[in-house]
């Protein structure tokens, strides 16, 4: 599992040392992600009856993951805001990005200025990177549900393969549901918390 963190670090190092032309990076990223999700789907489809059985038996528990993840994230955001000497609301707003750094940073930057936008961007990248690095460890110590929680909204894209690698292919469904629900909440919650 160490190779996941190493791949990420190798990327950061390469980006730092070489001036890489990134015009195609997003396209490659999307192709890799689509291929990954397609392969995860193949596994799910070939085992469809059993997977649906799991969803029927534990559907409610699966829905609990995004709800609890959202509540926990917001609690952590308020605490972090207070610790950093900011208005508690700012912590709440940044944490409600749930790791989706592009969207949350754009909304927050628009409302609170470029400095807060950058902070929201970096804080949510930090969440995603920490999740990628910690998911194998969290899975061993606390299981797949906790690993899915750590990824926040990114459980539906970048972190999904990391979760299924660590916790097993059965976790693709809860990861997709949790990440999907949280992704839908970002454009709702960020403006709501900005307005209070």
């Amino acid at each position, binding site marked *: 599992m160490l190779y*996941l963190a190493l*791949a*990420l670090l190798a*990327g*950061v*190092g*390469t*980006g*730092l040392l070489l001036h890489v032309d*990134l015009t195609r990076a997003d396209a*490659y990223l*999307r192709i890799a992600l*689509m291929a990954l*999700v*397609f*392969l*995860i*789907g*193949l*596994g799910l*489809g*070939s*085992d*469809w009856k059993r997977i649906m059985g799991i969803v029927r038996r534990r559907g409610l528990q699966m829905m609990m993951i995004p709800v609890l993840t959202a*509540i*926990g*994230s917001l*609690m*952590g*955001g308020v605490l*972090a805001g207070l610790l*950093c000497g*900011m208005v508690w609301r700012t912590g709440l707003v940044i*944490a409600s990005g*749930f790791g989706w750094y592009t969207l949350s940073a754009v909304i927050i930057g628009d409302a609170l200025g470029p400095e807060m936008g950058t*902070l929201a*961007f*970096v*804080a949510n*990248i*930090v*969440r995603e990177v*920490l*999740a*990628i690095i910690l998911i194998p460890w*969290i899975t061993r110590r*606390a*299981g797949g*549900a*906790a690993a*899915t*929680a*750590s990824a*926040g909204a990114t459980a*539906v894209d*970048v972190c999904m*393969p*990391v979760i299924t690698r660590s916790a097993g292919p059965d976790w693709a469904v809860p990861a997709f549901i949790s990440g*999907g629900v949280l*992704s839908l909440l970002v454009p709702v919650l960020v403006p709501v918390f900005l307005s209070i």
Partner: protein
Amino acid sequence: MGWLLAALGAGVGLGVLLPKAVQRSGKVIRVLLSVLVAALLFLMGLKIGSDRGILSALPALGLRSLALGGLPLVFSVLLVWLLTRRKG
């Protein structure tokens, strides 16, 4: 997210239609998954490493962004772990 859903749907559909073929190529799929995950994370890292804006903002934002990114992660993990472990 639509293109992601389409890729997942295509995979699930093909898996439902040809379950035997998919299960036979389980090993190939696992290797492909490993390679693709590594490629994905490398590209993510490449984007972060190449972004001078993020990197130059890090010293000033470092501790705050660590708290604002890390504490939400820690609290959501703890909450989910505490409230789902007995049923799990």
